[in-house]
């Protein structure tokens, strides 16, 4: 009896069980450690991905890029906002290797000379002007089923419901290219079967503020700010224009001053009359 107690007292805690020392994955067989995933880590994409072109964004996306074989929701406060600023680095790579860029129901007319400057070729660009929600969904579904290899599908679905997105997601699992669905920001409170949901807003000084609402793996707190000057504007900007927020602040001040003057002028006149 006493010897048993003695053993317990003398026993060291098993390796890795200590609170200060984290469990060393290297102790496990190679195969097990590769398959091990912890809740605090980012999920791994078991399928191919397309790099988004932004290092800080790639670091936060499972697998390091926009997923293929799945739909990706991009939520924006208003409809034509920053689609090409966000996606053009990824799409340029696909377009350069001959992939089709298929647009379903974009909110405005695409301007091809601008897209060419972003590296998206006019050869494989197709614009499908679908208007009604039913047409948009049908067209998107047909394209996803068609599996445009090496290409990408961009669909604007302002009124899609969760079960419709689910249907697209099921088809997208056998689609080798990324599928982007653009939806309004209000949809962030609805459940969605899309495995990746990203909300985008404009930040100050040419930044895009991204918040990943849903992804494989740990939840993300905070926002990612990625610098993105649209198109080829960067080449013609003066250093002052790289910080337009300062310019705007100056203008606001000037206007407040002007406003103050217009208010005070009649007041002065009134005073003079007395």
């Amino acid at each position, binding site marked *: 009896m006493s010897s048993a107690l003695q053993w317990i007292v003398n026993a060291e805690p098993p390796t890795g069980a200590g609170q200060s020392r984290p469990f060393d994955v290297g102790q496990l067989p190679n195969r097990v450690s590769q398959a091990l995933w912890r809740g605090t880590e980012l999920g791994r994409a078991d399928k191919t991905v397309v790099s988004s072109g932004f290092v800080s964004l790639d670091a936060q996306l499972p697998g390091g890029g926009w997923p293929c074989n799945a739909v990706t929701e991009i939520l924006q406060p208003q409809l034509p906002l920053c689609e090409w600023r966000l996606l053009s680095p990824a799409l340029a790579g696909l377009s350069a290797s001959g992939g089709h860029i298929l647009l379903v129901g974009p909110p405005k*007319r695409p301007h091809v000379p601008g897209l060419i400057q972003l590296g998206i070729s*006019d050869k494989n660009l197709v*614009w499908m002007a*679908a208007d009604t929600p039913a047409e948009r969904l049908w067209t998107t579904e047909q394209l996803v089923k*068609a599996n445009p290899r090496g*290409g990408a599908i961009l669909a604007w679905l302002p009124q899609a419901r969760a079960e419709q997105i689910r249907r697209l997601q099921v088809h997208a699992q056998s689609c080798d290219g990324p599928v982007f669905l653009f939806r309004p920001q209000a949809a962030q409170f609805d459940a969605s079967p899309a495995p990746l949901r990203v909300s985008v807003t*404009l930040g100050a000084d040419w930044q895009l503020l991204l918040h990943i609402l849903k992804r494989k793996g740990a939840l993300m707190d905070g926002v990612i700010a990625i610098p993105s000057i649209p198109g080829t*504007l960067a080449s013609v900007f003066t250093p002052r224009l790289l910080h337009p927020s300062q310019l705007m602040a100056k*203008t606001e001040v000037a206007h407040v001053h002007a406003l103050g003057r217009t208010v005070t002028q009649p007041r002065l006149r009134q005073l003079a009359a007395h």
Partner: protein
Amino acid sequence: MSMHWAALLPSLACDNSPRTDPADLAVWALQFTPRVARAHQAVLLEVESSLRLFAGEDHLHQLVEAGALELGITALAWAPTSLAALACARVGIRDGFAGPLAKVLDPLPLACIDAVHAHGTTLARLGCKTLADVRKLPRGGISRRFDSQLLLALDQAYGLRPEGYRWEILPETFSAKLELPGRVDTAPALMFGARRLLVQMGGWLAARQCGVTAFTLRWCHDAMRAKDAGDGGEITVRTAQPTHNVDHLSRLLAENLAKVTLKAPAGDLILSATDVTPFIEDNRSLIPDDRTTGEALNLVLERIEARLGKKRVLRPVLTEDTRIEWMNHWQALHAKRPATQVRQVPGPQPTWILKTPLQLDVKGDRPLYQGPLQLLLGPERIEGGWWHRVQDAEGHQRSLNVARDYWVALSQHAGVLWIFQQRLPKETGPSWFLHGLFA
């Protein structure tokens, strides 16, 4: 040499399904073998030499039976001789290869073979009920008492004497007619009959090793039509690539028919292949692909075009113009593209543009769009277009001349905009328009 015959019997009963003409059936069957004959109101196929091409007996049987079912043929049989196949088809035996030929044929009734049926009453009085009974009669007696056809037909059916037929010849052009069993009021309901015609056309195309690039479906109104309805109507469906894929063709036709309204009920359908070009099939790989490939993208785009309309599935064409609106225009998917190389426009360009520029409100001297705009860069003068004249609705000539100062403007909510200040006409004063977005 062993033979492998099939007999297809168009149903003679007056049921609800439309009847397929034996001549049309023969044309369809020519895709499997060049040895197709019409005899005894049936279509007979000899497929022995095609077995290898169609990946074996079972696969060929499946193909023929599935196709025949779509054409409304249910009486179908396989046997080593044509008359045996026909006899089996008449009594409803599917497989004449199930046992030795004599065992299959012996229990069949006299009516199965036409030459025997002709002497049916006399033979019945002799006590014959089955083909076996007739065979048991002495041959010399039969040949003296009945005509020579009876013995010949019996021997041919049992494979003792050779059979000879005049083979069908494949027509140069395809046009098939179908009488609908009932009056059809709506265009999409025509699809049922049209599908059968498309299957026939698919067979003809496969036999000719051609693909269709345009086909026409014509419908004739029946005699009870209103006076102003005319004789009928037609639609022509075009495809970009020559194809003989019946499923694709029928989906295209269904999309087109969905947009048609019939002026009167239709009674007859006629399908003809308008444009036909030789078709080269893809090589089939020995090694299976690791992933099942989706439908080819251009087929899908074609189908989307058929539903949305030609003006809504578009590809860009670049032109050398300084004016934003005419820098690129959009054309239908398969319209001819100019071969000229277009130089790239210098300077930044927006990625979205508005079809017609949107006039902006002005507060003081600053344009407004979802709040005041901050002008960042400009002006970039774009001027020209006096050479570009168009005729408006009233027939007046109008020049699309523009003189605009473009600015890059920043909005807090809408992002980076491409706005311009109109310089013409002068008297309206400076007016601002939103024209594009750097999204």
